[in-house]
């Protein structure tokens, strides 16, 4: 892989109590590219993506070994700050989860918590992030309406805009379109294409066609193992492992 590697997973193991959920995962993540994690339910892809911003810290009994190097520093090392990490590595979830506040406040909240007080600066951030999330034209005249008044697809783009507001480098998306209709899904996919010009995107998806459309690299996981990783075109045209082929062609079970 001849890319600028922003995150390097090396020999990662994870246990939930006695349950060994991830087995010796080694995976490079390229900057300004989209990497898809695919695999059947329970294979560990959501567990893995939650390792990237230490969301699993919140799970009691969770133990991690191995390393996840972000700009060469282990994110699980003693000097790593999870709050700072989550600012640089944002996350968008399966179900849109805007704050029960105005559209404007959803985006301004993060920068304000991180010390931005100037109204003009906050206005600029809100507009810029809404533009980047392809939502500005739809909401510019109602920025102070409740975010809950938006459609599901708009809410999900607002959540992406909210993530962008704290100036991240990596955006994690855990099945971001699974609760959306096809039109909202296509808008999110277009947005992912735009976002990778500036950001690294890692996406968990159950949709094979979505993984093949949006991602540059694809990792196939099964029962906690990383079975195959490669360029998306290779994975979907000529996978090297039979298990990958059986999964993506729907021959499991």
């Amino acid at each position, binding site marked *: 892989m001849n890319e600028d590697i922003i995150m390097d997973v090396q020999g990662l193991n994870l246990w939930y109590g006695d349950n060994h959920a991830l087995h010796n995962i080694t995976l490079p993540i390229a900057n300004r590219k989209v990497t898809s994690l695919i695999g059947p339910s329970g294979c560990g892809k959501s567990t893995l993506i939650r390792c990237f911003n230490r969301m699993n810290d919140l799970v009691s009994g969770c133990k991690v070994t191995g390393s996840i190097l972000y700009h060469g520093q282990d994110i699980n090392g003693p000097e790593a700050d999870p709050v700072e990490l989550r600012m640089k590595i944002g996350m968008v979830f399966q179900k849109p989860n805007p704050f029960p506040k105005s559209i404007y406040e959803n985006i301004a909240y993060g920068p304000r918590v991180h010390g931005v007080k100037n109204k003009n600066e906050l206005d600029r951030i809100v507009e810029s992030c809404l533009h980047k999330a392809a939502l500005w034209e739809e909401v510019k005249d109602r920025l102070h309406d409740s975010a809950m008044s938006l459609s599901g697809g708009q809410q999900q783009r607002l959540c992406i805009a909210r993530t962008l507001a704290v100036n991240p480098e990596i955006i994690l998306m855990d099945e971001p379109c699974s609760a959306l209709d096809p039109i909202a899904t296509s808008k999110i996919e277009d947005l992912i294409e735009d976002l990778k010009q500036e950001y690294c995107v890692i996406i968990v998806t159950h949709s094979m*066609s979505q993984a093949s459309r949006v991602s540059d690299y694809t990792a196939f996981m099964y029962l906690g193992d990383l079975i195959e990783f490669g360029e998306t075109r290779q994975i*979907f045209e000529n996978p090297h492992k039979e298990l990958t082929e059986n999964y*993506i*062609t729907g021959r499991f079970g």
Partner: protein
Amino acid sequence: MTEKERSDLSQIHIDACDLGTYAIGMLRDSIDAFERADTQQAHDVCERKVELKKRFIAVEESMFRHLALYQPVARDMREIVASLRIIYNFERIGRMGYDIGDTIKTLSQCCGLADPEKLIIVGRKVLAMIEDAFDAFRDRDVAPIRNMRKRDSEIDRLYCEVMRDLIRRMEQKRDDVPILARYIIIDRYLERLGDQACNIAEMTTYMVTGERVEII
């Protein structure tokens, strides 16, 4: 993969093979007609052109529908994409069978038939190449097409040899020029049919192994 998708894909392969059998039958019969100077058989081959097109369109449409409905990936995608290209080759083979048959009809009407000599040898070799390429596609097995490049080179060599021979005969006997000029056309058809066999072999290799090979 649903049962419906699986059976749809299997049926498409069966239909593509049926089209191939039909098209190769047209070519085989046209070469037989040429060898035996059998204008009735040439006529029969020409009669099959409409049915060939009808079958081709039906298989092509089923492939388009499968692509749109199931968006296949990996070996399923390779199978449908390769098959889609291969049925164009089959249709072309049938059409060239028709063209050869039509040429035989024209010859019998205006000039009579002269000894086709080496042209028949070329025709038999090309037919064997096409049949092997078809077997490889039908059985999803690349073994019968491993030496296709060498065989195509031989066809190219024979094509030039026959061409030189026909020109020499034209020079020697001017009365045979109308016949021999049409033999040159048939010689060219056969050379291009060798390319069709190679195209099928290339696509079958891609379908089975995922490797893109260049035979011609």
